[in-house]
């Protein structure tokens, strides 16, 4: 058979399974939704205990991050993530996992340039672009308050 690289690429694409999206997407939906329901329950619990909504939100994030760190340490988070894909990535627990996991894995390369530096390998860019976007918005918002 005589075909060009491009044609071969298209052929291969058509015949390779689309990484079983009928499985990955419902799993991400269910597990991600489940984590959010847990978050909602924790949020309600803190508000029930008498915290203001903002304060309850902060405690909820803290607790979710703590649980994610613990599950990452026990190697359970990554095991769930193999099935959940974006379901365990997109929630704040995924952000925590992206900090804890490299910290743990690169401990052997030292406490400063291993654990300390590699901790931010994913969180770093998130903070860089998140904070920068917020600064841009702050400046625009300040200008709008002038009029």
């Amino acid at each position, binding site marked *: 058979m005589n075909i060009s690289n491009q044609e071969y690429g298209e052929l291969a694409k058509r015949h390779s399974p689309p990484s079983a999206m009928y499985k990955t997407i419902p799993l991400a939906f269910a597990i*991600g939704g489940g984590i959010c*329901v847990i978050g909602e329950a924790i949020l309600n619990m803190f508000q029930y205990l008498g915290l203001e909504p903002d304060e309850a939100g902060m405690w909820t994030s803290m607790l979710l991050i703590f649980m994610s760190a613990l599950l990452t340490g026990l190697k359970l988070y990554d095991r769930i993530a193999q099935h959940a894909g*974006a379901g365990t990535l*997109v929630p704040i627990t995924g952000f925590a996992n992206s900090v*804890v996991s490299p910290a743990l894995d690169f401990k*052997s390369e030292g406490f400063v340039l291993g654990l300390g530096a590699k901790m931010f390998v994913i969180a770093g860019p998130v903070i860089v672009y998140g904070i920068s976007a917020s600064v841009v918005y*702050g400046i625009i918002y300040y200008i709008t308050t002038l009029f």
Partner: protein
Amino acid sequence: MDIFMEYVWAFLIGGLLCAIGQVLIDLTKLTPARILTSYVVAGVVLGALGLYQPIIDLAGGGATVPLTGFGNLLAKGVRKAVDMNGLIGAFMGGFTSAAVGISAAVFFGLITALMFKSGSKINEA
């Protein structure tokens, strides 16, 4: 709102935000770092446009737990800081509102790394 419906909406909206992320991973091969970064920036933009708060009012944790909620929190913090402190608030609000999330992740990350053994192949060898 009925307490049961509150959890249903949290599940549906939270699940939908994660499903969108999965579609992006499957179709575009975006790396996790890019997904997380895009979600936070998208949250800042949606928060700045005032479009995210209605989703939170509907879905609660379904909107605040995903990283778009973290982005919305940055936008909210910056707006509050500019209201209180003027222009310099643009350089304060983001970190102020992100403080709990970042501090908790860093602190518990350090504790976990100190307490647990690495599961990577490098260490097992």
